[in-house]
């Protein structure tokens, strides 16, 4: 008899028992891996959103909140629009503490014969912009020409393709890196392109404003100079400028941050609960096997196996189950979290950006370690008990 092959033969001999233990390890490693990737993705989503906003304060018309959900529109890319007079830009630039200010133009396309997709179109001034250009320059170094657009990562039109808004064809010249937020569905263009689209919408009877596009802007993105307090600058604008509202970006993010923290804590708690539950069930299953396997171990003692070898046999069996179950659980977790990340993001309504390969490999390794620890640890007591079976008593009882 080859002792090295004994653990595998034991596992094969009792397929029911092996399957139960394997399912427990799969469940455990699935929960640990899928849970940790989800928590990591939520954290990535928030930091991606913070980086993408790039502004300290966003100034919008004071009537904006009555038309749209401001946070949803600015942070989640929900199509919407509002406009204010362009003269506000000059007033904002004269406020002490404002280092940079750049206008943006919002437009919503419709899903109809005139447009290939319903999305938020964001126009910016390439000469003054500091919030969109750094992102675009990662994928596109040239200057955006009229009717050129850069699309978010969630728009599946390839670079070099075309999208049509209000029967105006626009060239997709680049695609942005994902942020894990609704902003990944937005389309970015220069101010001239947006004005052409606004005119095209008006020509089709779908005007989004009565005013002259040349005199209107939607929002002003502000970078506050070093040494100035963001809240103080925002308060100053709110007090001294009429018909506008200055919103500190941090205050918009705080709601999302709170929700993310709540969900992350819940997931961590669930993962811990699943791990403990599966671990306890495994201890119970292994303990239940002590009586069932007493005779088998007594015979092995008679044929010359030492107590240490018996303990090692049990631990090897549980280690084999842990490796196989751990790998299957991690593979299942990956098959659920990564392909369905867009569905998860849509379902929870929060930024969700899956981590990079390095982090995923690290999380997979940690999940495998969690499974490798759980199996042998759960079987340790049973290994101790079985290795100390009184061979004579057991065999006499069986006779």
């Amino acid at each position, binding site marked *: 008899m080859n002792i090295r092959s004994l653990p595998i033969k034991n596992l094969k001999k009792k397929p029911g028992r092996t399957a139960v233990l394997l399912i427990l390890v799969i469940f455990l490693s699935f929960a640990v891996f899928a849970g940790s990737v989800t928590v990591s993705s939520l954290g990535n989503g928030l930091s991606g959103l913070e980086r993408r906003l790039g502004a300290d304060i966003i100034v919008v018309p004071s009537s904006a909140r009555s038309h749209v959900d401001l946070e949803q529109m600015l942070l989640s890319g929900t199509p919407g629009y509002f406009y204010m007079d362009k003269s506000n830009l000059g007033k904002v630039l004269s406020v002490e503490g404002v280092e940079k200010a750049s206008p943006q133009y919002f437009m919503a396309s419709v*899903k109809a*014969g005139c447009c290939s997709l319903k*999305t938020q179109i964001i126009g910016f001034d390439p000469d003054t912009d500091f919030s969109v250009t750094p992102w675009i320059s990662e994928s596109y170094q040239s200057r955006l020409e009229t009717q050129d657009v850069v699309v978010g*990562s*969630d728009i*599946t039109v390839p670079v070099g393709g075309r999208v049509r808004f209000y029967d105006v064809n626009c060239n997709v010249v680049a695609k942005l890196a994902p942020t894990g937020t609704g902003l990944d569905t937005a389309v970015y263009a220069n101010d001239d392109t947006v004005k052409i689209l606004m005119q095209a919408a008006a020509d089709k009877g779908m005007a989004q404003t009565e005013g002259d596009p040349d005199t209107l802007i939607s929002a002003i993105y502000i970078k506050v100079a070093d040494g100035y307090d963001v809240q103080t600058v925002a308060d100053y604008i709110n007090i001294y400028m009429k018909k506008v509202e200055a919103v500190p970006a941090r205050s918009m993010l705080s709601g999302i941050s709170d929700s993310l923290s709540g969900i992350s804590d819940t997931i961590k708690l669930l993962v811990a609960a699943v791990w403990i539950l599966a671990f306890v069930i495994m201890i119970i299953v292994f303990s239940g096997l002590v009586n069932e396997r007493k005779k088998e171990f007594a015979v092995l003692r008679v044929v010359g196996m030492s107590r240490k070898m018996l303990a090692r046999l049990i631990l090897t069996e549980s280690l084999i189950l842990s490796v196989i179950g751990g790998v299957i659980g991690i593979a299942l977790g990956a098959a659920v979290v990564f392909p369905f990340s*867009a*569905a998860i993001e849509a379902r929870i309504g929060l930024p969700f950006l899956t981590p990079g390969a390095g982090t995923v490999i690290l999380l997979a390794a940690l999940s495998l370690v969690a499974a490798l620890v759980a199996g042998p640890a759960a079987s340790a007591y049973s290994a101790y008990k079985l290795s100390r079976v009184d061979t004579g008593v057991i065999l006499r009882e069986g006779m």
Partner: protein
Amino acid sequence: MKKRKYIALDAALVVLTALLTIGALTFFSPCGIHDDGTYGTCHWAGAAAAGIGAVMLVLAVIHLIAGSQTAKKFVAVSMIPSALLSALIPGTLIPLCMMAGMRCNAVMRPSVTIISIVIIIIALLDAVLRHRLEKSGDKR
């Protein structure tokens, strides 16, 4: 009565192909009708995936009731290109909607792809095991 070999693989192929067929029409169906009353191409991608799923379901049932290991092996092999085709339908052979977050991209495509890949793996495993059985002379 002789014990059937690898009945779990027979059952898995029937269940997965049924899941693909029914799922593509129901719980992971593509986007619905658009605001302007038209269907997107993703609708037809869903219909095609369901159609190929139905063909594979028939093959899986034939595989289940077939008596010889040789017949089972060849039916399993024939399912591999069919499953590959169904995996390629959404997004590769038939374009889906332009937003990654839309139902066809977020739910239907990964579901069809994953189920198809699992079918390929099981069919391949089944064919290999049946081939080994054949070689060893066990014709049950």
